[in-house]
């Protein structure tokens, strides 16, 4: 019995020794196969995920390439030496707001012919309502013909569409005689522009139609309709622009007319207490001189209808010239504002001359503005009513401005300007201030402008 056991045990042991080895081998091979299978699966998942990443990336790229941001900003310090407030809201208080502006524009290229553009502007002074200055869709039917719809800027004068982009023009601010005439700078509507070349001249036509709401002081103006057409001809360094804008608006004068009595019933000597001497003399002549009976009738009619005054019909005509040969820069504009009604119309023009010396440009400007539709009503009662904000009023006014300044381009995209304006020749009127400033007024400004 023992002998058999002795033979079997080593055999058993031997077999036994094999058993665990074989079990490990099977499990390892299985594990290896499992691992390989899992690795293959992982690779597949990674591949898919990379593909998805690439597709998201390319979609993002597509969108980012289609979206462009541009911006502009200005800051400045300005002050005048008179109490009266200038049409730009500058007075003898140190003013950091009059020229402070920041604008951001986002352009999304929907496709290669269509853009969606949004421009938001923040201003130190409130011009009208602080909203998006423009937000529109633009479509170019051909490379030379584009139509836009939405909220757009009024192209009334040479630089009306870039009013706040100080970097793009030489002076500390757009010449106020021209650019502060009307409170409208944007509108809701459509415009188009078309470029062509004719007999060696480049030609652009721009037309617009729209409506808007603006605020003049405490008065709300609802523009029922405005339409304008502008032509620009250019050749080489010279360009000429002319056009016209027609505006029909209703006004809610708010409290402006409360307390303005019907002066046709008030005796002259009573009014002499509140009106300036020459206005009193004029009124006296009207009322006592039989030869002026029809003038008196017109005056009385205007005075009584003034209580119902709520409509504006204005036409803005403009002519502009720009010349820049790299060294000499000449800008000049003439504009006429024609009112049908009691508000004053006016004529204005300026000429600006600048010369570049590398990155420096000294410049000088002469500007003149005067009313040219003096009504008797305006002469007599106008100063009593005063202005309805933004310098618009019923009284005659005139003045001239002499400006000297220096612009320095620190680097492409940043410019500093220093400017001194000397306003004079008021002839006892308020010029473009809200009250008579005296014999002359000075405005001094330092501004910094940039685009990015």
């Amino acid at each position, binding site marked *: 019995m023992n002998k058999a056991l002795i033979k079997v045990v080593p055999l058993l042991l031997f077999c036994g020794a094999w058993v665990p080895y074989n079990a490990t081998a099977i499990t390892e091979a299985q594990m290896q196969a499992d691992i390989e299978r899992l690795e293959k699966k992982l690779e597949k998942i990674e591949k898919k995920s990379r593909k998805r990443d690439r597709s998201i990336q390319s979609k993002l790229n597509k969108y980012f390439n289609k979206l462009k941001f541009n911006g502009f900003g200005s800051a400045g310090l300005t002050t005048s030496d008179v109490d009266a407030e200038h049409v730009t809201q500058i007075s003898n208080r140190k003013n950091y707001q009059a020229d402070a502006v920041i604008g951001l524009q986002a352009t999304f290229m929907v496709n290669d012919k269509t853009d969606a553009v949004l421009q938001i502007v923040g201003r130190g002074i409130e011009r009208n309502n602080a909203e998006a200055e423009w937000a529109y869709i633009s479509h170019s039917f051909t490379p030379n013909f*584009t139509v836009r719809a939405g909220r*757009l800027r009024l192209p009334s004068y040479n630089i009306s569409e870039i009013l706040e982009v100080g970097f793009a023009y030489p002076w500390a601010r757009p010449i106020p005689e021209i650019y502060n005439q009307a409170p409208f700078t944007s509108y809701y509507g459509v415009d188009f522009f078309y470029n062509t070349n004719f007999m060696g001249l480049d030609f652009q036509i721009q037309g617009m139609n729209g409506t808007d709401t603006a605020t003049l002081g405490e008065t709300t103006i609802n523009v029922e309709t405005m339409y304008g057409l502008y032509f620009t001809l250019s050749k080489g360094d010279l360009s000429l622009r002319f056009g016209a804008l027609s505006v029909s608006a209703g006004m809610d004068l708010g409290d402006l007319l409360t307390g303005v009595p019907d002066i046709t019933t008030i005796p002259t000597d009573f009014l002499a207490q509140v009106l300036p001497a020459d206005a009193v003399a004029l009124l006296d002549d009207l009322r006592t001189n039989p030869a002026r009976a029809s003038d008196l009738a017109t005056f009385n009619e205007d005075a009584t209808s003034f209580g119902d005054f709520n409509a504006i019909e204005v036409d803005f005509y403009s002519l502009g010239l720009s010349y820049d040969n790299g060294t000499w820069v000449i800008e000049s504009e003439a504009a006429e504002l024609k009112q049908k009604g009691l508000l004053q119309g006016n004529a204005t023009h300026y000429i600006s001359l600048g010369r570049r010396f590398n990155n420096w440009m000294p410049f000088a400007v002469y500007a003149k503005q005067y009313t040219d539709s003096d009504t008797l009503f305006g002469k007599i009662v106008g100063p009593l009513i005063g202005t309805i904000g933004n310098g618009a009023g019923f009284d005659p006014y005139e003045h001239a401005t002499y400006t000297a300044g220096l612009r320095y381009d620190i680097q492409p995209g940043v410019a500093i300007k220093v400017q001194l304006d000397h306003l004079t020749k008021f002839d006892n009127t308020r010029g473009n201030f809200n009250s008579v400033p005296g014999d002359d007024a000075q405005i001094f400004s330092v501004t910094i402008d940039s685009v990015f």
Partner: protein
Amino acid sequence: MKIRNFLITLFIATFSIPTLADIAIVVHPNNPLANLTKEDAAKIFLSKTKTFPNGKEVSIIDLEEGDEIRNAFYEKVTNKSASQVKAYWSRLIFTGKGQPPKVAIDSDEVISAISNNENAIGYIDTDDINENVKVIFKVP
């Protein structure tokens, strides 16, 4: 001897004028446009002219702001300094009447952009011209 050599070197150094890059305007070899006047070149690169004579819309390839070749190109062809070019484009951008051209980092990118687009136009250092582009204007 030493002093003489030194003086000669000094003399040469003082009177050597560094050579500025020569720049040429290039288009795709299939572009029918054969040559350009300086005025036409200025109008194209300032986007005043938007189409080639054959009516196809121009696709401008510009170099980066600050690039020496770019500054030299605009000075010589359009008479505008870098600041003036920036002011010019800001007028177009902020009136919504134009977008500045696509930008390439170097000649290689310009050439590659042109090879992919028969209506592209750009400017490069004459040393980098190869058979993928056609020269239509040499900047004086």
